[in-house]
């Protein structure tokens, strides 16, 4: 992209830069961490990304981020019940981790503020590129989070639920998780709260050889919140990652997903549903790097757009030169249910190896009239028939997760959304 001179700072840019000055003395970190923070705020001083930056083409952050709330020390977020009963809950209330983590065999949990103070987390704080605005924002301001380490061979019986709950103001958290060789776990990332908050949340997952993880991101921010999130994962040899993303809230949401296969036999599955309503903007951007031979991936994204909502899905699959025998497939299907809504999609393939099978498909359409007719001919009224079809369209993705407790929990979230927005 051309370096073009930013005409003037927007109020949001000014607010972020001022907030950094105010917060600096309160932010934990050794010398190395503080240097990374300085670099990160420098990047923000160059201006938030605009639509002229290719990766932000459909989400002009500079224009859309029009208000940045102040940090609110008085905000008190309330704890919520986990989506699956009996889960191990690690809660961040307004960006602050609970002092004592629950004791689970094979899982060690550390507060991220400690790892920032001793500097051991510093190498992981680098943004991945000049257009990584979320990474830069988070590195500049991150104050807490959880560092979770799942031991080699550990098989967790109950899900671990990482809750990031806010009640206004700003929160910036980071959730690094290491899963040891052969370990198995289900991890739920809950993003919720109330008020007009600005949150940035970065999850970093490293999967050891043969590890199997199902990671669910359930984002249900209020329609006043700005939620900027990143999920990064490295998938090791023969490891399997199933990532499920559900976006059902937020005023301005960008969920970035950066995946890299680092060992042969790695497998990645992404299943996503975006339920968009109101006057909101939701962007899911995925970059998947097939960096070694013999790795596989499939991605299925289903979107439902109502009201004045604007949705974006960008999915790029990079197949590196030596990543022969890659098998990658991606599909993005959208139901556009209102004339004021819009959806933009950009599925990209970047392929440098020849012995691969890669494909993507994308559709945007309204409800199939034949399906509607079929149901209505059987005495179902139009509204219920539409409801059934829309629900079936997204529920299909959830049902693919072969864990009954999780499927039920997610379907319950889905029902709740339909009750509020039906």
């Amino acid at each position: 992209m051309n370096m073009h001179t930013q005409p003037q700072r927007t109020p949001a840019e000014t607010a972020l830069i001022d907030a950094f000055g105010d917060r600096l003395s309160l932010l934990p970190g050794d010398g190395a961490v503080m240097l990374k923070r300085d670099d990160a705020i420098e990047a923000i001083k160059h201006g938030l990304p605009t639509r002229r930056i290719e990766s932000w083409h459909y989400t002009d952050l500079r224009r859309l981020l029009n208000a940045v709330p102040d940090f609110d020390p008085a905000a008190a977020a309330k704890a919520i019940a986990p989506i699956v009963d009996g889960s191990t809950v690690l809660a961040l209330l307004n960006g602050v981790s609970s002092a004592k983590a629950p004791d689970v065999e094979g899982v060690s949990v550390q507060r991220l503020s400690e790892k920032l103070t001793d500097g051991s987390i510093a190498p992981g704080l680098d943004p991945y590129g000049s257009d990584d605005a979320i990474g830069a924002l988070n590195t500049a301001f991150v104050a807490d989070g959880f560092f979770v380490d799942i031991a080699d061979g550990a098989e967790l019986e109950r899900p671990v639920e990482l809750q990031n709950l806010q009640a206004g103001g700003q929160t910036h958290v980071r959730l690094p998780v290491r899963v040891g060789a052969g370990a198995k776990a289900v991890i739920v990332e809950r993003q919720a709260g109330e008020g007009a908050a600005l949150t940035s949340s970065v999850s970093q997952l490293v999967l050891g050889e043969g590890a199997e993880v199902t990671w669910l991101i359930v984002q249900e921010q209020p329609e006043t919140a700005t939620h900027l999130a990143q999920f990064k994962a490295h998938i090791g040899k023969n490891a399997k990652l199933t990532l499920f993303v559900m976006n059902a809230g937020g005023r301005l949401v960008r969920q970035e997903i950066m995946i890299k296969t680092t060992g042969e036999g790695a497998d990645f599955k992404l299943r996503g549903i975006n339920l968009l309503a109101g006057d909101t903007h939701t962007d899911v951007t995925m970059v998947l790097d097939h960096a070694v031979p013999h790795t596989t991936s499939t991605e299925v994204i289903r979107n439902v757009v109502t009201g004045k909502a604007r949705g974006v899905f960008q999915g790029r699959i990079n197949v590196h030169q030596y990543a022969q025998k890659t098998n990658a497939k991606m599909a993005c299907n959208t139901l556009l249910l209102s004339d004021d809504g819009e959806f933009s999609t950009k599925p990209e393939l970047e392929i440098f190896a020849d012995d691969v099978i890669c494909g993507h498909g994308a559709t945007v359409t309204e409800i199939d009239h034949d399906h509607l007719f079929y149901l209505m001919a059987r005495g179902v009224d139009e509204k219920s028939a539409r409801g059934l079809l829309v629900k079936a369209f997204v529920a299909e993705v959830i049902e693919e997760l072969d864990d009954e407790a999780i499927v039920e929990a997610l379907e319950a979230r889905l029902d709740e959304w339909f009750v509020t927005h039906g």
Partner: protein
Amino acid sequence: MPAVQDTIDRVRKIDVDQYKYGFQTEIAVDKAPKGLSEDIIRFISAKKDEPSWMLEWRLEAYRRWLTLEEPTWARVDYPKIDFQDIYYYAAPKSTPGPTSLSDVDPEILKVYEKLGIPLKEQEILAGVQKTDASDLEEVSDNVYKSGRVAVDAVFDSVSVVTTFKKELAQAGVIFCSISEAIREHPELVQKYLGSVVPTSDNFYATLNSAVFTDGSFVFVPKGVRCPMELSTYFRMNEKNTGQFERTLIIAEEGAYVSYLEGCTAPQRDENQLHAAVVELVALDDAEIKYSTVQNWYPGDAEGKGGIYNFVTKRGDCRGDRSKISWTQVETGSAITWKYPSCILRGDDSSGEFYSIAVSNGYQQVDSGTKMIHLGKNTSSRIISKGIAAGFSQNTYRGQVSAHRKATNARNFTNCDSLLIGDQCGAHTVPYMEAKNSTAQFEHEATTSKISEDQKFYVMQRGIPEEEAIALIVNGFVKDVIQQLPMEFAVEAQKLIGISLEGSVG
């Protein structure tokens, strides 16, 4: 595949670099000094005998261009172009405004002969010169049977000859060089020039608006079906010249025209710039079919030399039920940056884009289309086939958008890429933007290599590997080849064979 084998054999005889149009012709030329300034633009305009409004238009574009930056979003990589190191005007020295073939420098005619372009169909030409109406009828009857094509030939910056002019005029069709059109039909040019690609459109289109030297102009009046295929051949000959042609095609209500362009250039070590603009306007019920066989010099085996092909092509389906169809076979150029687009403004209008992009050696192709749905019940169809071999990069970049009022917009996109070798890259970057709930967009893309099974199947029937690959590739691109006028389909198939030569093993 006898045709392909024939091509391969012929190519082997020609040169190691396999580019058969790489010859250069010594022709006396008339050149403007190197570089770009308002004076050069005034010089070009004066050379062309242009009216003052045209000069003003050019100067305005030039002033705008000075404020623009070169686009960098495409996946192409090349050293910065020094726009002051290019000749913007080079014309073969010959009698001013040739009216017939005999006025044309015989050297130029030899070039076209080498290219195998049917310029010198003198017998038929002689027939046309008879103004007898009954003869003309006879001629029109024979048009399709004899497979005749009216040709406008553009050499460096200037259109040297246009054939079949009189016969076309009889049907009411105007087919001439754009310079001639500016002089002879200023009202049409003024009305339509820049109405599809405005002077401020993009860096290269703006540059073209300032310095374009020639190109073709086609006007098909209301209700006329153009009696023959129209065609332009572009040839870049002079060293260090840039070619900036401008094509404008207008089909009035109910008219139909099929137009084909072909291009070649000599082999040279330095890169040459080609920045063309093509504008199509289709009014109610009109149809324009535009086909391109692009074979500019792609550079040698080390990636040295070759043409930078930065082209803006756009069609405007302005009228209801109008149709514009782009077909392109891209085998040449070191760098291709080209997105033939359709603006579907009229209700029930439709746009089509069929493309084959073959890249080998160090070629870089970033091509695709834009389908902008504005009217009601508009439909578009995109079929793109990319074939990458050698060290080349082949990108499909396309946009489909439906605006708020474009109810029942319909699009189908299919882009497939084929990779031959592990040093090349194939990329697909589609943008889909729907702002209307009745829009129905489908996009599918695949990337793969030629499967061993397919190759084995063909080879075990006694066909050698190289031919087997050519056969499979031709099958792969069949959907697009079918869209080309018959004569050119054969040529395109041969070109693909030549381009892929040496990519096996």
